[in-house]
């Protein structure tokens, strides 16, 4: 349990640094900005208490806001992601009961499960974020395009994150 918390804190710091120092500086064709930091919320244990899940997401979002001049925007979108997460997990899981402390991973959940999990959550997060950023519907279709492209790229990066984190897990078991 103790090592689990340390692990999540390390993931938090690493993802913030990757997001702020690398991804926010790369411009993929001008429009697209991947937000890979959402991986942090996705990797929290399945049975984490609800308040802790929401608070962690809020903390993550606020930290990203601090670094990118988007006061509250990432916090709002990430809290939204955390709010729908339990529902999404229930929806895509065939088996309703998990071992306590299960962390979403390729080895324990399978590729299909992880892919659905990533795509749904990233799409909800990005939709909320991009419309909050625009704050009007006059550029609706352009925004939709940005959401689709960014969702695809973020999802790919998050999936790579899952792949990278998977191997040591397998060796432990």
């Amino acid at each position, binding site marked *: 349990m103790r090592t689990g918390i340390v692990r999540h804190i390390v993931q938090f710091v690493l993802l913030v640094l990757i997001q702020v120092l690398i991804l926010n500086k790369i411009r993929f064709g001008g429009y697209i900005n991947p937000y890979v930091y959402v991986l942090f919320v996705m990797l929290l244990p399945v049975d984490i208490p609800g308040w802790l899940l929401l608070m962690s997401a809020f903390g993550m979002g606020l930290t990203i806001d601090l670094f990118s001049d*988007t006061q509250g925007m990432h916090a*709002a979108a990430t809290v939204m992601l955390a709010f729908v997460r339990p529902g999404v997990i229930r929806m895509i899981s065939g088996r309703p009961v998990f071992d306590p402390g299960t962390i979403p991973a390729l080895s324990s959940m399978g590729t299909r499960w992880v892919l659905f999990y990533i795509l749904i959550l990233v799409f909800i997060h990005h939709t909320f974020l991009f419309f909050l950023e625009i704050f009007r519907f006059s550029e609706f279709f352009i925004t939709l395009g940005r959401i689709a492209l960014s969702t695809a790229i973020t999802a790919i990066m998050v999936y790579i994150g899952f792949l990278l984190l998977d191997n040591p897990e397998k060796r432990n078991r």
Partner: protein
Amino acid sequence: MRNLFSFIARNYFFFVFLLLETLALIMVYQHQHYQRSYFASSANAVAGQVYKWSSGVTDYFSLRKANQQLAEENARLLHFTRESFLKTDRQVFTFRDTLYQRQYQYVNAEVVNSSVSRRDNYLTINKGKLHGIEPDMGVVTFNGIVGIVASVSDRFSSVISLLHKDMQISARIKKNDQIGTLLWEGYDYRKATMTYIPSHVALSVGDTIVSSGFSVIFPKDLFIGTISDFEIRRGDNYFSAEVELAIDFNKLKYVQVVNNLMLEEQQTLESQSENTAR
């Protein structure tokens, strides 16, 4: 009452969500309506420091380009120095010349963080309150307008970029002195739109756009860019022109913050005459 508590306890997940989401949205709202609100801007000391470290590393990669840019600027400035003019008239008396009075002061600054890919873009520069920078000062380079200072901390300032949906700048077509409004519609960071140009004006591709000097923030005749396309949009009775910006916001490294020394005088006068007219 007990029922209420048990209801909240049963649905606490939803209520915590509601609380945090509301908190976040209030912050978004405050930021959008009071641009100077301070809490989570990267002018914030912590973020500013992290960006300073990061910039300290990445600066080395662009040294060659920075040198070249500085050399070009030097050459340009040398062009205007007194040494490059031959004094032909011994009667000229320049000491304490009251014909010219300084209106603009420039503070040199380095961009430590910026974005171009969002709809509302900001920059962070490494000069702040200690260097005399205040909110609402203009930020320019030798070939164009960069933005307006939104908030300052001791050593950093956060700048609203020209690439922001709330930015509208008064601009002038150089060849016929027509005034229009320059704004960014959010597709391509190399291109802005100049709108409200009267439909009788003769435009052509390649026309030079400069700043008008009508705002109290930016000096006049700063080169902004050239027209690359123009049209009368359906339902409008004025031209909208696509302007190719001279500044590449993606590789912007050094900027100048403009301090208008006569700003207060002009604003007081203008508000006075508005009041008497009323």
